[in-house]
């Protein structure tokens, strides 16, 4: 179906490109405030803690704790029609920021609070998504 593909990142966007350059190499990276050092997610041009403009991108550990998750049995946006059922989680990284991502594995029993680790999942030749699976990695 035309126009019904899962969304891909805009790799020309400087708020987006460094993240996917890293994932292609199997690294997880987030923005660090150039002044106060706050690690932020999602990316943005200004630090939400100290309002400094600008940042570095730094690697963080690809491990965290599952804060919660939801399993889509119906595609609430038609671009995910081929993906259902699928599970999305909110991961609290061991290095601080919270990040949404697709989960791989069985979530029918309560997995909140479980250790998870990143899986670098190529979806196109240019784009590797960060998915997550159970276990400390």
């Amino acid at each position, binding site marked *: 179906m035309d126009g019904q593909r*899962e*969304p*891909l*990142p*805009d790799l020309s966007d400087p708020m*987006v490109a460094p993240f996917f350059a890293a994932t292609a190499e199997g690294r997880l990276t987030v923005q660090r405030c150039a002044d106060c050092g706050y690690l*932020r*997610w*999602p*990316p943005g041009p200004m630090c*939400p*803690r100290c309002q400094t403009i600008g940042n570095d991108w730094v690697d963080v550990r690809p491990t965290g704790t599952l*804060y*919660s*998750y*939801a*399993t*889509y*049995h*119906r595609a*609430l*946006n*038609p671009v*995910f029609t081929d*993906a259902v059922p*699928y599970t*999305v*989680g*909110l991961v609290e990284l061991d290095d601080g920021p*919270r990040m*949404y*991502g*697709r989960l791989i594995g069985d979530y029918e029993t*309560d997995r*909140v*609070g479980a250790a998870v680790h990143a899986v670098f999942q190529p979806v196109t030749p240019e784009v590797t*998504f960060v998915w997550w699976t159970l276990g400390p990695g």
Partner: protein
Amino acid sequence: MSVPIRASIVGVGATEQGEIPGQSADIIAVRAARLALADAGIDKSEVDGLITCRTLRQSGTDGTDEAVGQLLGINPAYSTTLVYGACGFSLHIAAMAVLTGLANTVLLTYGSNQRSARANFGVTIGGGAEWTTMAGLVHIGGQAAMAAQRHMHLYGTTEEQLGWVSVAQREWAAMNPLAIFRQPMSIDDYLASPYVVAPLRRADLTMISDGGTAVVVTRSDRVSGFRPRPVHLLGMAQQTALRNDQNPDRFLRPWIGTLADSLYARSGIGPGDIDAAYLQDATSVWVLQMLEWYRFCGVGEAGPFLAEGHTRPGGSLPVNTNGGQLSEAYMWNWLQLYEAVRQLRGECGERQVAGAEVALHAQTHDFVKGAGTILSTRSE
């Protein structure tokens, strides 16, 4: 001691709800406005304040005071529009307008044709939207499901307990001729229905419908100029969580508790004084959370509280006696205000809460902010 001057609701109106093909949201808003003016017993020439609201999905001037005022044919002294002007926030602006003297008689109106216009709710809007969409976290139902899953983990809340939100509201809706979903739904029906986004089912998520609602607000020292028995705003409070994604426990919305404590302190009303509660229900999870944060039960205890039947017809705390967004109509809590006023005026027929004198109207805008109001026919 003299009675303080308050803002008071002196008129309410609602159009039919459901599908209204061929009418713009603004036309629906104006039709609702005329019904509220008729209820108030005044002519539109007496309106000197207008507050409209619009959705993030509307474009141009649609839904603005400019567009609605022109259609309604009025030149009020004061007018404004709230984007995401869901009812509780708009109501507080009306109160500020009449209490500061910017206006004496404020008309608030909201119209929606989002069902007929086939609005796309599968798109995440606002901060971080493209990242959440790429993750597949689309529609408010997904985030509500995460909130429910977290509650279940922390407190042992069960799907059956959560189901009583929707089942109780359906029981109320069955007695409301305005409600769209009135067919019986038992807890077994609920549990037998498929997941949409687990642990939530269709009945846990708002419907999308067309309709309009309007309200007239004045000052309590001017209520004699209006036909109905006035309903006074005994207290108002708001709290934001604008840091949004950067807030820990974003999904659990603990800041609603801060809001509630301010509201009770300002109004001199406590949770035990409330005869009926109107808790905005984009999803059933919002009701679960607000029962706790508004102190009707302890934090983590809303599951058992619901299963004990307190919110059902005949229960100790009637909740969303119109059926809410889950069973009545998609009106962003405007119809809950309409219902609260009519319950306090004693006009709700079969579903009337006997002797209702004090109501809570509680609004939230997802994970971003909330507004609470204590309403009463008593002026103090």
